């Protein structure tokens, strides 16, 4: 029986923060745990087998939290799991009532807007790359060798798909900003 499980692109499979939290909660309920989130966890994340636990997870994007950020959450009983890009992760074991870190609709919406903002930074970078490669192909087709052109076409298609994907992610989070 395997005791590790690796999941690729988890942040692209569960793009809405509340869905990502619920997915982690289901994994923990089946005994699959992550104890640390890292910069690139959105791409690759590894779960270790353990006891099934009833955990509430929180996904909280904070680009530059104040120095009392960690202490505030910890005092409320949350355990810090690290950050994945700008998103900080927290968990708390519970029995009956599922604990909430965002207790009113304003702060849930604000959390989701911070998530959209984080995605929009990557979106803009890819959009600029799209325009850059398209510009090269359209305005300087003859100063490129055939191999160069093929590579640039592949890059253009790849970045276009990523840009559209990230655009769709932002719209989806926006549509679900209340949860």
């Amino acid at each position, binding site marked *: 029986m395997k005791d590790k499980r690796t999941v690729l692109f988890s942040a692209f499979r569960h793009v809405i923060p509340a869905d990502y939290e619920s997915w982690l909660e289901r994994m923990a309920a089946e005994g699959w745990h992550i104890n640390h989130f890292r910069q690139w966890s959105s791409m690759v994340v590894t779960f270790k087998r353990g006891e099934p636990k009833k955990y509430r997870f*929180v996904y*909280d994007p904070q680009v530059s939290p*104040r*120095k*009392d*950020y*960690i*202490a*505030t*959450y910890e*005092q*409320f009983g*949350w355990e810090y799991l690290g950050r994945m890009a700008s998103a900080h992760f*927290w968990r708390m074991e519970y029995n009956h009532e599922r*604990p*909430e*870190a*965002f*207790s*009113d609709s*304003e*702060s849930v919406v*604000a*959390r989701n807007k911070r998530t959209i903002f984080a995605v929009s930074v990557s979106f803009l970078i890819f959009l600029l790359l799209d325009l850059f490669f398209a510009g090269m192909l359209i305005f300087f087709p003859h100063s490129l060798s055939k191999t160069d052109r093929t590579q640039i076409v592949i890059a253009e298609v790849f970045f276009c798909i990523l840009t559209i994907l990230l655009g769709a992610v932002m719209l989806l989070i926006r549509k679900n900003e209340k949860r």
Partner: protein
Amino acid sequence: MSLEQARKRYLPMSETMFYILLSLREERHGYAIMQHVKELTDARIVLGAGTVYSSLGKLEGDGLITVVREEDRRKIYIITPLGRGILREEALRVAELHRSAEGLL
């Protein structure tokens, strides 16, 4: 922030902001605010860590509350005169709502 700007930004006030400001008439840190609000509202409102953290940041940034001191990385806050002014106006508004709702209960 001037009283006029604070009025525009905070009135009418969300119940979260109202209870946080109300709690900070005495010195408190984040967790103590949550406990106090829970008691005041008979557990109807249980503020979350993220909500408390971001509300305190916003209120401090706008000068409605201020940090008194720090105790092992936890900040202790209290309301400022500006915060008291806004809280008083919100209380007047609540009193008006309450008067208008008479006969409903």
